[in-house]
C-alpha cells in the first residue's frame, strides 16, 4: 500500500485514509464578480496537468481531516514531499526528481511483466 506522509499527523499513513483534491496553489480571484467569463473559466476549469512534477492538494479525510499539499511525479505516482496548506510552493531539485522518476524505457523495470507474442501466446 502507498504510504503518504501527513504533515499534520507527522507520520506516514496508509493511502486509504486520504483523498486527492486536485491541483494546488490556485489563487481564488479576489474580485470574482468582476472577472470575465474567460478568466473565470481559466481559474475554475483549466488545469496544467503536467507530465512530471505536479503540485496537488490532498486531504487526510479519514485521519486528521486537514488539507495539505504535495509535490508528486505524475508518471511514477511517487511522492516527492508533502507540506502544510498555506506554505510556499517548494523548489524541487533535480536530485529529488531523479529519485522519483519512472525507469527509462528499455530498462527491465519499465517493461511490462506480460507480453503477448505474435501467435498470441504469453511470453
Amino acid at each position: 500500500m502507498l504510504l503518504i506522509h501527513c504533515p499534520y499527523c507527522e507520520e506516514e499513513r496508509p493511502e486509504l485514509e486520504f483523498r486527492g483534491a486536485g491541483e494546488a496553489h490556485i489563487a481564488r480571484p479576489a474580485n470574482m464578480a468582476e472577472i470575465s467569463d474567460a478568466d473565470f473559466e481559466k481559474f475554475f476549469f483549466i488545469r496544467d496537468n503536467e507530465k512530471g512534477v505536479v503540485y496537488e492538494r490532498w486531504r487526510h479525510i479519514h485521519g486528521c481531516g486537514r488539507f495539505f499539499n504535495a509535490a508528486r511525479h505524475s508518471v511514477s505516482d511517487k511522492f516527492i514531499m508533502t507540506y502544510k496548506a498555506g506554505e510556499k510552493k517548494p523548489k524541487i531539485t533535480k536530485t529529488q526528481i531523479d529519485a522519483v522518476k519512472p525507469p527509462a524505457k528499455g530498462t527491465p523495470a519499465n517493461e511490462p511483466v506480460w507480453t503477448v507474442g505474435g501467435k498470441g501466446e504469453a511470453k
Partner: protein
Amino acid sequence: MSKVAQRTGPLDGRNFGTTGVTLTPAAAATRISLRAREDGLATAKKILGFAPPGKPKSSATKGSINCLWIGPDEWLVIDADDSGLPAKFAKEGNTKLSAVEISHRNTAILLEGAKAVDVLNSGCPQDLSSASFPVGACSRTILGKSEIVLYRTGEHAFRVECWRSFSDYVWSFLMDAAKSA
C-alpha cells in the same frame, strides 16, 4: 403507571466472544466534538480540568473524561460519567471554540483479547504495533468501509468509536474478522 421513555443503544443486547477476542457494546457516554484554535485552548482546559493533548495520535485522561487528539484543532471528548460538560461548554459561549455534543451520533465497541490487533488489522490499514500505536494512542481512521476513531485502552484492549448508523456494519465486520483471526 407507565414508565418514562427509555433510550436504547444501537447495539444493546449484543455480545460476541471467540478464542482470543471479545466484543462488547460500550456503555452510554457523553461525547463532544471539540474544535479550538490556540486562543480557545485555555477555555477548553478550564472546562475539562486538563489541557487537550497537542501531539498527534495522543490522548489525555482525568477522572471519567478522555480527550482524544483527532486533528491539529480537533478533539473527541468522551465522558463516561455525566459531569455536565455540554452545559459547561454552553455557558462559556462559542466565540473561541466550538463544542458540539455528539453523544448519540457515535457509539462504541470495546474490543479485547490477545487477537485484538489482528482483528482490527483485517480492516484497518494502520500500523497497530505497540511501538507505533501504544496504549493511550488514538486516531481517526477506517475499518473496512466505515470511518472509526480507534483508541487503545490497553495492550490488548481497544475502543472503536463509530457513527451510530454504521455500528451494525462495524460490529458485523469485527465479528467476522474475529471468527477468522
